[in-house]
């Protein structure tokens, strides 16, 4: 009986050892690593594609906005040309004349502030 028991124990141990050899931990780790790397690669690829689509979409948007800006600049320039303004004035019956010389007040820089500073003993920095 004792022999039989010990034989059975040995058999059991042998089976366990064999199972470990069929699927070793190192191989499992390798597979896991490969899976993680593959998934990472796929995720990165997908992310790159996504970013690519975003870049493409933003490039189109930028292009469209630049186009609109140019169009508006063109229209603004056309509208503000002297010829167009003259036409508009005529259309609305507005007559514009230059101010007479008596109506013009020209402001010239004077040295009043310097005189004031000197008179009060202040420091002038300019």
């Amino acid at each position, binding site marked *: 009986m004792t022999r039989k028991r010990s034989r059975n124990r040995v058999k059991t141990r042998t089976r366990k050892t064999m199972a470990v050899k069929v699927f070793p931990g190192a191989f499992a780790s390798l597979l896991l690593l490969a899976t993680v790397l593959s998934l990472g690669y796929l995720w990165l*690829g997908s992310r*790159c*594609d996504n*970013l*690519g*689509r975003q*870049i*493409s979409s933003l490039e189109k948007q930028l292009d469209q906005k630049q*186009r*609109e800006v*140019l*169009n508006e*600049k*063109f229209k*603004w*320039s*056309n509208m*503000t*040309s*002297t*010829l167009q303004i003259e036409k508009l004035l005529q259309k609305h019956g507005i007559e514009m004349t*230059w101010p007479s*010389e008596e109506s013009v007040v*020209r402001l010239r820089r004077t040295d009043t502030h310097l005189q004031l500073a000197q008179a009060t003993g202040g420091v002038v920095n300019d």
Partner: protein
Amino acid sequence: MTEQRPWWRVGLVVLVFAGVWTGLGMRLAYLHLGENRDLHAKVASIRSFEKDVSVARGKIYDREGNLLALDLRTRHVSVNPTAIQEKGVGRSLAVRLGQILDIPPATIYATTQKPGRKQEYIAKFVHDDKVKAINELGFSEVFYDEISTRYYPQESLMSHILGYVNYEGVGSAGIELKYNKSLRGVPGYRSTQVDGEGREILALRSLDIAPVEGDSIYLTLDQNIQYFTEAALDRAMATNRALGAWAIVQDVKTGEILAMASRPTFNPNQYNQYSDVERRNSTIGYVYEPGSIFKVASIAAILNERLFRPADVIDCENGAWFYSGRVLRDYHAYDRLTVADVLKKSSNIGTAKMALELGEDRLYRYLRGFGFGERTGIELPAEEAGILHGVPSWSSLSLTRVCIGYEVGVTALQMVNMISVFGNHGYRLKPHLIKRIVGSDGMVKYEAQPEVLSRPIRGDTARLMCKLLTRVTEPGGTGRRARFDGYTVAGKTGTAEKIIDGTYSSKHNMASFLGLVPAEDPRIAIIVVVDDPETRTGGVAAAPVFREIAENTVKLLDIPPIPEDLTYVFNEEIPDVEQ
């Protein structure tokens, strides 16, 4: 009784399938893993996509930053006549498109009814606003081609200076031609790969060199002064029924050109619909004998040499003077005139007699000093140098003819640059049109500075000339129509006979007026030339145009009038040379 299954047939099918799949598998493995250089290259060439990224041409602005030229993407609008005829929507499409594109519906309808056609152009260079309106109509038979075009929002304004760009995008005239390299920029480059549907795979973009937009050019021209100048020329053309007219406004103190206009003109947006004459910038490209306005240079030379004083008296031979076997006449006969009056009355005889004292060599040297016979160097293509022959080729008569503006050829730009010398203490500055050039990154690449070309006369002679020329626009002077309230004008009229069929014609003239405002401290110089006016003389045809341009310019530039106590008023008093 059961039929025995033919196992060999099943085996055969399995074998065949196995063989086919094995073959395909091997082929697949071979394609992917084998060398196959040709095949790989073929696939790569299909997937790879390389292209130049187009770049917008630089913009052109006036001195105040008003936009004068830009690249704009527009569309050519086409229709599919076959599809329209099948659907029977020709009439409604023609009416609606006609309203948007300002084209008669009948014209569009006729285009849509062309048999067997798949594409017919309805309109070219259509702007985005109109395209949007067309899209809202929802006609699937309308489609577009996108195109980038150079546009000039001010249309014909400044057209001779701006020039134009041809359909290949190359500058072909004016600033567009002269600064083509700077304006066109550098195209970008992209190397990438596309998928089966031709869409770019952004992740595989291997090279992306961004385009560099062309430089922006700021001109010295002022949009408003240019407009008033062109409007004045248009009126002069109509009033005088002239063949042409041109004018230049120059800032005396810097040499900047504030306005430069030429008639006839053209619209650079449709440059190919105009003739060469209409596209010619006559201010720099038309060489003509200036006549009396040239006396200004001759008399300045004579006074600078101190050969005569303004009060000295010249015998003007009662209007006809024989010299070297030929007669020289004055427009009005004068007995004796002071030097100052020779200029005021524009006496040919008086000027010629003084020129004889000056001599050929000295006159020639002064004229070269004023810049005649050479290009000014303005930043425009096709500038003419004019004609000033060397003294060895002068005849015995040449001295008496050159000094009054014959036997020489000048451009209007040379003339206006000459008179600017009087307002600038005798210094001749280089006339220029470019104020600054700014790169696409906003950095200023070039900023114009006044550049002295020569100093033909002394400062005191320059001031004296301003005083003497003021008398020309006073009552009794030939240029009195150039005067306007509040300002003193120093100027000179010119009426030169044109050469028709090899001889001088008394019926065809070049009428001109050349002047400075304000005379006491000149800020602007203006020349107006009218080609073959009905009214003939410079005092009648050109002086009023000068007044109109000058009056608007001093107000736009806010040039204040000179206080009355400093104004040049002669009242028959003749100024003397300042020692």
